[in-house]
């Protein structure tokens, strides 16, 4: 879908927020953080966006 549409759905990652049921704990590049699903939003895909790497779900 993201290969064709000019919009993407993004959910921000943060390291400084409080945990909640709608914030998914992840580890990205060794840092623990949260995906704030309460702030999920569509955004226009820009050509400057790049792939940063996978994030892991802590066990």
């Amino acid at each position, binding site marked *: 879908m993201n290969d064709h549409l000019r919009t993407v759905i993004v959910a921000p*990652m943060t390291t400084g*927020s*409080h945990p909640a049921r709608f914030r998914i704990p992840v580890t990205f590049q060794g840092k623990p953080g949260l995906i704030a699903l*309460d702030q999920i939003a*569509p955004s226009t895909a820009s050509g400057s966006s790049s792939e940063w790497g996978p994030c892991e779900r802590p066990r």
Partner: protein
Amino acid sequence: MPNCGAIADQLRGRRTLRPRGCTAGSHGLSNATPVAAKSAALRVTTVMLCTIVVAAIGASRSNPVSSPSGAAQRCATSVSAAGTRPGSGSTRRRSRWWRVCEGVCHPAARAGQHAQRGAIVDCVADHLRAPRQQVRNGVIEIRPLHRDPREGRAEDARRVTASGDDALVWPEFGNEGDGDLVWRGPVRSGWPRWTPPSEARSRRRARAWSSRRSR
């Protein structure tokens, strides 16, 4: 005392109960109804006198069990692991409990007349972690506990808002024109209807909004 040979035959040959070789009345299963697919005939292996659990109904490991019964046994293990064992005693008590009880633990009120050693009991089992148990027509049913996946979100949202943690994490990652939008709070009821705003109403709302923000 039940006919143990007949019970073993029952466990091997039939998934659903009714120990025909035994006197069914003595096991409290005379009114047991046949149960469908995910059922298992389990035998009461241990009766323990304690505050919470009276009967441990287990599929004995010595008996070859079919797939549904195996599922029941697995779920039974998870049930006992979930803390239905009585009290929180020492490690020795805990290990003894694990050794003795390999099965589904039923609270006394639900076990009722099934709490007899050697009784064959029907269990409608599923893959469980937090099961809901009930006795209906002489059959102990164990069903998965359905929980609302959205449970607790409202409380968490209230807590996050109260702590001021609901600001945008990436404010710069918006769309064109986002800066012009004004958040007017949640809609109290119904679908938001568009009404042509009069100037007076807009001014009133703006004043209310600014006073709320200043607080």
